[in-house]
C-alpha cells in the first residue's frame, strides 16, 4: 500500500517514524524505507507494512526500542527504527 493511499484512507493520523513512538503506544506500520536489505531484516521478525506493533519500552542513552509484534518481543535499534514509518493507533 502506498503512503498516499493510506493518508487518504486515514486523514486524521499523521505518519511518524517508529523511533518517535512512545512506550505503551500501539502503532501500525505504513512503510519501510531504506532499501531491500533493511526491509528484509525487519520483515523476518514480522515488522512489515500493515503489522501492528506495541512499543513496550525504550532504552536510555539513545538505546533501542523493545517492541511486541505478533506475540514475540523484538529489540529494534533506533537507526533501524528510523526507517519504519508508522501511524499511532488510538
Amino acid at each position, binding site marked *: *500500500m502506498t503512503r498516499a493511499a493510506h493518508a487518504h484512507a486515514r486523514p486524521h493520523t499523521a505518519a511518524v517514524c517508529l523511533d518517535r513512538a512512545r512506550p505503551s503506544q500501539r502503532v501500525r506500520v505504513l512503510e519501510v524505507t531504506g532499501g531491500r*536489505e533493511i526491509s528484509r531484516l525487519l520483515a523476518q521478525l514480522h515488522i512489515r507494512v500493515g503489522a501492528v506493533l506495541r512499543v513496550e519500552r525504550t*532504552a*536510555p542513552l539513545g*538505546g*533501542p526500542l523493545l517492541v511486541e509484534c*505478533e506475540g514475540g518481543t523484538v*529489540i529494534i535499534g533506533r537507526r533501524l527504527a528510523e526507517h519504519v514509518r508508522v501511524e499511532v493507533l488510538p
Partner: protein
Amino acid sequence: MRVALIGQPNCGKSTLFNHVAGYRSATANFPGTTVKLATSPVRLNGHLIDLIDVPGIYSLTTSNPAEDAAKRLLLSGDVDLIVNVVDASLLSRSLELTLELRELGLPMVVCLNMSDEAERKGISISASRLTELLRLPVVETIASRGLGVRNLFTHVGLQASARPADAPELAWHADVEAAVHSVETVLDGCIHARHFPRRFFAIKLVEGDDDVWAAVPACAHAVAEQARAGLVRSHGRPADSVVMSERHDRSMRLFEQAATVGRPQPDLRSQLDNWLTHPLWGYVFLLLVLGGLFWLVFGVGSALETLLLAELESLFAGVGAAFTQGTLAFAVVRSLWDGFAGGAGIVLPYLVPFLIALALLEDVGYLPRVAYLMDGLLHRIGLHGTSTLPLILGYGCSVPACLATRTLPSRRDRFLVSVLATQIPCSARSTVIFALVAFYLGPWWALAVYGFNLVIVVVSGRLLSRLWPEVSPGMILEVPRYQWPTPSVVVKKVWLRLREFIVVSWPLLIGGSVLLGLAEHWQLDAHVNAAFSPLTALLGLPVVVGTTLIFGVLRKELSMLMLVQALGTTDILSVMTTTQIVVFTLFIILYIPCLATIAALVKEIGRKLAALAMVYSLAVATLVGVAARFFLEALAR
C-alpha cells in the same frame, strides 16, 4: 538417512538435538548460537540417522552467513528429511518458515515444541487439525523435558521417503499462483535433472532471490522477470513483498483454523522485565550480576586453588623422592608433574565455576536483555547491542566469540567485533588474572585489571570505528522468554567447553612444561630469553619471562603456568614486583591471541584482516604494557 533440524532462533532446536545427540552441540537462549552445523549419528527406534543441527533461521531469504549455510545445506541434496521445529507459543509467525520449507518438496515432520509455553500464553493448538491442514505429520514435544521426543522420531522413521502431499487449500491467490506456475513450466523445460525443488525455485525466482537466480539456467530468467513485473503492476509493490504477504496470509489462516486463543495465565516472567530492562534498575541489576559472577568465580577459585596446590605439592614430594635432583629424569618428571598440576590446581578451579555461571546466564535468556541495555553505550564505540553477545561470549572463550560474529550483518562489524572480542580476557586469560593478580595482589587489583581492559576495548572500538566508518543498518534481535535453565543442557554446555581445555590445552600444557623443563636442564632457555630481552626490557619484566611469552600463543594460561616454572617458585612476589605482575598480565591479555583464536579469526574475517588484527594486538599490548609500567612505577615512587 540425513535429517536436518530446522527452525527459527530460540525454538528449542538445539535443546532437542542435545536431548538425542548427547554431549555434542552447544545451545544458548539467544539467537545465533548455532553458528556451525553440528552433525551427530543417532540411533533412534532402530533407525540410524545423521542428525544435523542447523543455525536458527527466520526464512530462506538469505540475509546473513548463518542463513546462507542453512539454505546451501537444504539445496545440496544431502538432506533426506526436514524436522521443522516450531515454537508453539509463536505459532502464527513460525508457520511462515514451515510453509517455505514445504515448498522444497522434501519429506518433512513438524515438531510443535514448547506447547507448555503456548498453553501459558492461552494458546491451545490442535496438532491433529494442523496435520490435516498442512498434510504433514505434526508432533507435539516439550524438548526441555524430553517429552514427545521418542514419538517425534517414530514419525521421522515413518515419513522417511514420503514427499509432502499437495495441499490445494494452502494455494495462494490466483494471480500469484499463476505467476509461480508460469515460471515452474519454463523451469521444467530448462532443467533436465529428474529431481529438483521445482516450486521452491519458481517461488524464489519470483521473489528475486540472487542465489537461485544464479543457479538456474538463463532461459528461465525472462519468464521470471515477466512474472515479477506482472505482480508489481497488479499489486503496486515489489514481488518479494507480495509473496511474503501470501505466506503471511496462509499462516495466519492456518493459525486461526488450528488454534484457539484464550486468556493467558498470569506470568511472573513478564513482570521480571519491568525490572531487568528498567532504565535505572536494569543497570543496577546488570552490575550486580557481573559483580556477583566475578566474586563467585574468585571466591570458589582461590579457595580451591590454595587447597589443591598444597595437596598436589605434598603428593609430588612422595613421587619426587624416588629421583635424584639435577638428573635428566628428575627434570622430566618434575616438569610433567608441573604441567599436570598447573591444569588441575590453577586452571580448573577458576574455569569450572566460570563456565557454569556463563552457561546459566545464557540458558536463562538474560544475555539479549544485556544487549538491549548496552546498545546505547555500544553506539558510542561504533557498534550495536547485537555485538554484546559475541563480546560477552569473549569472556568465556575468544573462539566462540569470533564464530558468533557470523550472525552480524556486515563484514565491518564482524571485523570490529572479533578484534574487540579477542582483546577481552577469555576464561584462560581470566585464569591468569585470578591466579596471578588476584591471588598475589588481591581482588581489587584484579578488578582494576578488568576495568582497565574495558577502557582499552572502548578506546580500541572508537579508534577502529573511526578508521572504518559504519554502514550497517542497526540492531534487530529477538528477545526470548526467560526460562529455567535445564540442568542437562547446562552440564553439556560446560562439558563441551571444558573438554576443549582437557583434550587440547592440557596436553599442550604438559608438553610445553616438559619442553621448558628440558630447555632449562640443558640451559637453552637463556638463548630464547636473550632473543626476547629487548621486549622484556622495554616492559621492565624479568628476562626469564621471555620463554613464557611463546607459550602464551599456544594457550594464554600456559604463559602463567610457565611463569611459575621459569621463575622456579610459586612465591611470585619474592621475584616480581607488583608493577611487573600487572604489566605481565596486561601484556598477556592483549598480545596476539592464542592459536585456536587465530584459526577462528582466519575463518571468519579472512587471512588478511586476521593478520592485521594480530599486528594491531601486538602494538596495543606493547603500548599498554609500557604505559602501565611507567604509570605504576611513577605511582610507586
